[in-house]
């Protein structure tokens, strides 16, 4: 402001000196900056003007000279600082050269305005952050109840079951019961497959011709229907077993026709 408009230029020289000192200080702890925008904000502050009135052109020059100095001092700058330098060089050329109406894209002024906006916004957020942290804080300035009382939710689970559920569960179990092999109470009316197989093997030698399966049932097992059913099933299963090992042949001429057996290899 005053410095920049000073007619004799001494203030400007003074300012430039200060800027140089500042930029040297910046170089020393370049690591302390959080990226190019942070650095730009710091440089902008050396202009000592409201960020809204910042000269973006001057800022671009400040930044570029900073990067140049870093190069001469062989300070390695991170890539994003160099990207920003390239962009600012481009911005500078746009700001200095007369506007080419043929060229599309945003104008230098638009780009400069946006950069100024970014700097102003970053600064604003930093101030806001400081104000936020300066507020009274829970556990530091004000406190919650130190001795909270038990206010839990007592959950009571009520199990729903009706007498119908109970009966159905029992019925299910009892039905399953009747299939359970452990509960074959009267085993005397059951011919096991082992017994049938034994018997079949001993009789097989006589089955030189096709003979009905019923002829192979044990004596006394053909009259009682329960016994006959069990003996028939067991003998049939035994016959299939013997067919499988190749010592017997089996045939049935039609559905429900008699099942006939004979010894194989005759």
């Amino acid at each position, binding site marked *: 402001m005053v410095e920049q408009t000073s007619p004799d230029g001494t203030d400007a020289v003074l300012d430039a000196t200060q800027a140089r000192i500042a930029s040297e200080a910046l170089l020393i702890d370049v690591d302390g900056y959080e990226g190019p925008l942070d650095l730009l904000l710091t440089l902008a502050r050396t202009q000592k003007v409201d960020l809204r009135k910042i000269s973006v052109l001057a800022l671009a020059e400040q930044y570029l000279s900073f990067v140049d100095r870093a190069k001469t001092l062989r300070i390695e700058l991170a890539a994003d600082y160099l990207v920003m330098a390239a962009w600012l060089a481009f911005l500078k050329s746009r700001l200095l050269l007369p506007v080419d109406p043929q060229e599309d894209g945003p104008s230098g002024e638009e780009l400069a305005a946006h950069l100024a906006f970014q700097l102003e916004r970053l600064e604003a957020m930093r101030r806001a952050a400081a104000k936020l942290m300066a507020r009274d804080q829970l556990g530091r300035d004000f*406190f*919650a109840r130190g001795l909270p009382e038990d206010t*839990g939710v007592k959950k009571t689970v009520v199990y729903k079951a009706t007498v119908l559920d109970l009966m159905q*569960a*029992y*019925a299910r179990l009892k039905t399953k019961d009747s299939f359970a092999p452990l509960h074959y109470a009267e085993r005397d009316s059951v011919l096991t497959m082992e017994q049938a197989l034994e018997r079949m093997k001993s009789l097989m030698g006589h089955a030189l011709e096709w003979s009905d399966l019923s002829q192979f049932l044990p004596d006394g097992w053909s009259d009682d229907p329960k016994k006959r059913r069990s003996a028939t099933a067991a003998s049939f299963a035994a016959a299939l077993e013997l067919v499988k090992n190749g010592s017997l042949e089996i045939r049935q001429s039609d559905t429900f026709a008699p099942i006939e057996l004979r010894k194989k290899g005759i």
Partner: protein
Amino acid sequence: MSDDKPEQPANITESLFEAPPMAEQERMIEAILFATNTPQTKLQIENRMPHGSDVAEAITRLRKRYDGRGVNLVRVGEAWAFRTAADLGFLMQKEQVETRKLSRAAIETLAIIAYHQPVTRAEIEEIRGVSVSSGTIDMLMELDWIKLGRRRMTPGRPVTFIVTQVFLDHFGLENARDLPGVKELRDAGLLDNRPPPGALQIPSDDPDRAEEQDDMFG
């Protein structure tokens, strides 16, 4: 300070600042007792308060202020603390009732106990064909639907389970003997022929199958 006032030579630190007004002392103690996590003795409060404070007086006033409120200033031994009023305790514990269906294992175990009581765990396992977890028994005990009966007079003297009055009340039964038998269940169409999930797949195309089997093996 006028010199005609016969002031006692006070301790320097004490005289540097005047004690805050009583209303402010009350506020301070209110905040201290609210924020601390243990009841505070008079001495503990005094140590936090500005010099010259009349803690006893401030507590008396504060206690009166909270008299009849939802929160009271109570004496705990030699110390002071805020406590919610005893008559409002019911607001603190919120009851939440959740209805759940009994697990299959639980309902089956319960059914066996109801139909066969007194019954041992081994017997339940034999009927169900699978072992019964302690969790299931525990849950039924907790629900107060089953309890221990007399020990069986067999080797090992195993405990038996029987159903409780709570069980009978819940299921609306006068007596466990009132439970309908299998035949009645079947007659009433309650006997589900579909195999239970996870059980052996029994061909379901034959509704008479169960009887046939009974026929065959009975």
